[in-house]
Structures are given as C-alpha cells and as structure tokens.
C-alpha cells in the first residue's frame, strides 16, 4: 500500500530531515511511527500526502508513484487519505459540523448522506453536542477530536495520524484508539505518529522508529524487545 525507496528529504542544504528511508507498509497494516521530537515523523507523513516532495527517492502509494504528482492529481490522492494533522488545520470560520462535512462535500455526496455520516462520526468521538460551535470555541482536546472525525468520516483507504492523542486524556485516548481499530479491521491502513509509549504497550502493533531522520528500529509486536532490521518484509 505504501512503499518508500531510499527517500531523503532536506529542507535546508546540509540538513537531512529524512535520510535514506526504505519502508514497506502492506494494505491493512497498523504502524506506529515513533522517535524523539524532531526525528522526522511529521516530515515522513507530509511526504505521503504530498505536502512536501522528497529530495531523493521514490514513494508509491496504492501502487502509484506520487513523487511527481502535480496540483491536479494531488487532490484526488488526498481524497483517499484520512489525515490528522499535528496542528489540526481546522477551518476556523466554519462550524464543527461543516468542518467534518467538508471532505464529503468535496466528493459531491448527497446532502442527507452527509448529515447522517457527520452526525454519526461526531457522536463516535463524543462531540455530537458541539455541532454548531466554531473550532476556536472548543477546548484543545475537542479540536483534536474534530480533526479525528474529519479524517475518519470519509472511510479512508489510508489513515495518516500525526499525534492524534497529544491533547487527550487517557480515557478519550482509548475511545479514539477503539475507533482506529474498527477502521483498521474494515481494511484501512493506518500510520500513526505518537510519543505515547503506554499506548503502544496497550495496543501492540508494528513500531517503526526514527532517530534524527534515519530508520532506527522496525519491530513487529510479536518480536517486541528484539530489534529488527529495516527490511522486515
């Protein structure tokens, strides 16, 4: 589903934010992306949704080489993705309802279908009573949950989640993880960047860890504690 071949990304000349990453994620996998602050997790995700271009290397998503996608093809790629941004990127002048409905409107879904799906998804993240609020009227955790709902509402092929639980208390975090597991069971491939080690302990899955832009470990849950190599496949 997602393949990276010798991918490098340098924002500035001599500083590689990502360093020769080769990685393969199969359809239906659930992968944690960890590593210290500034290791390159968000950069890796940005490459996958074409917000940044790799300096070197090739990236295949769903069998397509997205490395040279232009502005006309990027939107159609992103429609197959559910993305939770580290800084949420909500539309501040629209209500919670409109924010979550937006990706469905883009796809041209019918009005009643949209309202049903949006309500259902907002309820699953516990925000059905905040429908008509604007994002800036919500608490940090509530905003994050709106971002989660917006990513999940489209039943994405791939879910890219950048620290989706950083602003959530442990109980709500568990609820969100349940949602991810349900989506995963339905076939959605999930890549989730997180710092939360207790979460990884509670829901053990494959863990890819970065360190200063390089792949450090790539552990399947069965072999936890035993460092694997980059090429686990």
């Amino acid at each position, binding site marked *: 589903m997602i393949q990276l071949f010798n991918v490098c990304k340098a924002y500035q000349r001599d500083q590689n934010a990502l360093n020769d990453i080769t990685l393969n994620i199969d359809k239906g996998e659930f992968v944690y992306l960890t590593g210290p602050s500034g290791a390159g997790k968000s950069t890796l995700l940005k490459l996958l949704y*074409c*917000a940044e*271009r790799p300096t070197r290397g090739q990236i295949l998503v769903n069998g397509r080489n997205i490395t040279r996608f232009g502005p006309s093809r990027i939107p159609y790629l992103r429609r197959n993705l559910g*993305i939770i941004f580290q800084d949420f990127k909500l539309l501040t002048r629209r209500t919670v309802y409109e924010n979550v409905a937006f990706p469905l409107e883009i796809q041209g879904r019918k009005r009643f279908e949209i309202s049903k799906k949006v309500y259902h998804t907002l309820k699953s993240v516990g925000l059905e009573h905040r429908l008509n609020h604007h994002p800036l009227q919500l608490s940090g955790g509530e905003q994050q949950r709106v971002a989660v709902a917006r990513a999940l509402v489209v039943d994405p092929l791939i879910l890219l989640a950048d620290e989706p639980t950083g602003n959530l208390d442990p109980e709500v975090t568990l609820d969100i993880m349940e949602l991810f597991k349900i989506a995963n069971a339905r076939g959605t491939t999930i890549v989730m960047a997180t710092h939360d080690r207790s979460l990884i302990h509670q829901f053990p899955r494959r863990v890819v860890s970065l360190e200063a832009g390089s792949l450090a470990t790539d552990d399947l849950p069965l072999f936890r504690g035993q460092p694997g190599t980059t090429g686990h496949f």
Partner: protein
Amino acid sequence: MILRAGYFLKRALRNMRQSPVLSLASIGTVAVALALLAFFAIAVLNVQQLTKSWGENLAVVAYLDDVPDEKTIDGWVKHIEGYPEVATVTFVSRQAAFERFRKRLGDDSDLVEGLGPDILPASLEITLQEDWRNESALATVVDRLRKDHRFGDLQYGQGWLEKLEAFLLLLRVSGSALGGFLVFAALVIVANTIKLTLYARQDELEAMTMVGGTSLFIKLPYLVEGALQGFMGGLTALGLSFLVFQVILQKSLGSLLLITGIDTIHFLPPIWQGMLVVGGGLIGLLGSLFALRKFVRFGAS
C-alpha cells in the same frame, strides 16, 4: 457541477456574513473607486454635450453680391440642402446681417450709427451635418460651392474650426487617458483588496487543499464572493454618484450652471449605469481570480 451552483453561492454569502469587516472593506473600496469613475464619466459626458452644441455653430457663409428674388433664393437653398454633408441652409438678408453686426459690436454699436444696412452683403449660412463637421468635409462643400460661380465670396472659419477640432481631440485624448488610468486604478485597488482578504484567510485555503479540495472547488466560492462584492460595490457607487448628482450638482450648483450658459446637465445614461454595476462585478471576479493564483497551493513546492 451545474447542480451545485447553489452550493457555491451559499458558501460565498456565508463567507461574507462571517467576516463582515473584510467584505465591507472590499465593497467600500470598489464603491469608492467606481464612484470616482462615475463622476468622471458624468463630467466627460456633459462636456461632450457642450462641445456638440458648439459644433452646431460650424457653418459656411456664402456672400451674395446681388440679391436675387425669393424664388431663386429658394431654389439655391434647396440645391445646397441636397449636398450630403449639409444640414441646414439659411438666407440672411442685408437688413438682418446689419442688425446682427450692430449687436456683435455691443457697446461699440454707436460706431456704425448713421451707416445704412447696405454696407453689409446678404448671405446664405450653411451648417453641416453632425457626422461631417470636420475640416475635410468643409473643404469639399466649399469647393463645390466655388465651382458653382454664383457664390464667389465664401467665408468659413478655418482657423477657428481647426482650434475646435484640436480642443475636442485634446479633451478626448486626455479624457480617455485619465479614464483609462481610473479604470486601471480601480482594478489595481480592488485586486489588492481582494488579495488582502485572501491573505487573511490563507490558513483556511491551505486547510481546504489538505483534505482533497480541487483547485476549482476551493476557488469558486471566493470567485463568486469577489464578483458579488464587486457587484455590490458597483451598486453602491451608482447610488452614491446619483445622490451627489442630485444634491450637489443639480440643486446647489444649479443656479451657477445657468449663469455660465450650461442649461442642463445629464446623469449617466441607463446603459452606462448598467456597465458600472456589471463592471464592478467583473472587476471583483478578475481581482479574485488574479489573487487566488497566489494563494491556492497544494504544498509540494
């Protein structure tokens, strides 16, 4: 896409309601810029009217050494009126010419006292049709009259006509230069204003590109919004200029205008009014289109 026109219109209206400051700022700017244009147009229009009435005075005078009987004169008048360039032909008798001369002298009229009306010749005064009021048409008419031999002594205000033509050309050239600059200024200002409103919303535009909006889907509501704002600006400008026209130009300056010899001034004709409003919408649309190029980006630079 056609079925969803309502969606984009609704979004545009909601956008405007949600940030009234931005909307009012750009509507106000368009209105002020277009009101300036309207005032300018009113001025040009009325000056043109004025110069047109000057042009009516443009004439050829054929002096008659001997005055034939009325029937002959009538024949000549008919003949000359048959020329394609000619509008009217008027016979001025010796008596009438002398009267006019005395009036023209004004306060000096006592100077011709004691002189008889026969010091001035009778004449035929020939005015040209509107389309033919220029130096070359005049020359044609004069040539033809001269060939006729009956009219030897022709008088026509060459120098004066040249001056009038130059003046009209000057008005037209400088008028369209200033007008063009005004349109350009309005366009720059409106485009700038809309660019700035989009600048204030660039987070929103970025967020929309990030969840899969196509360029057109994202841009359309802003284009509609720009066009609407331009349209409203145009309407406001029309209202504003009409108000100023009514209150200041017609009421307060009315008596002054009468004294200077301009009897009525006109507001913009309906077609121009329509153009002002439609033009506002167009400017808004173009302004948004231009500004959006810069702000809708899809990451991957």
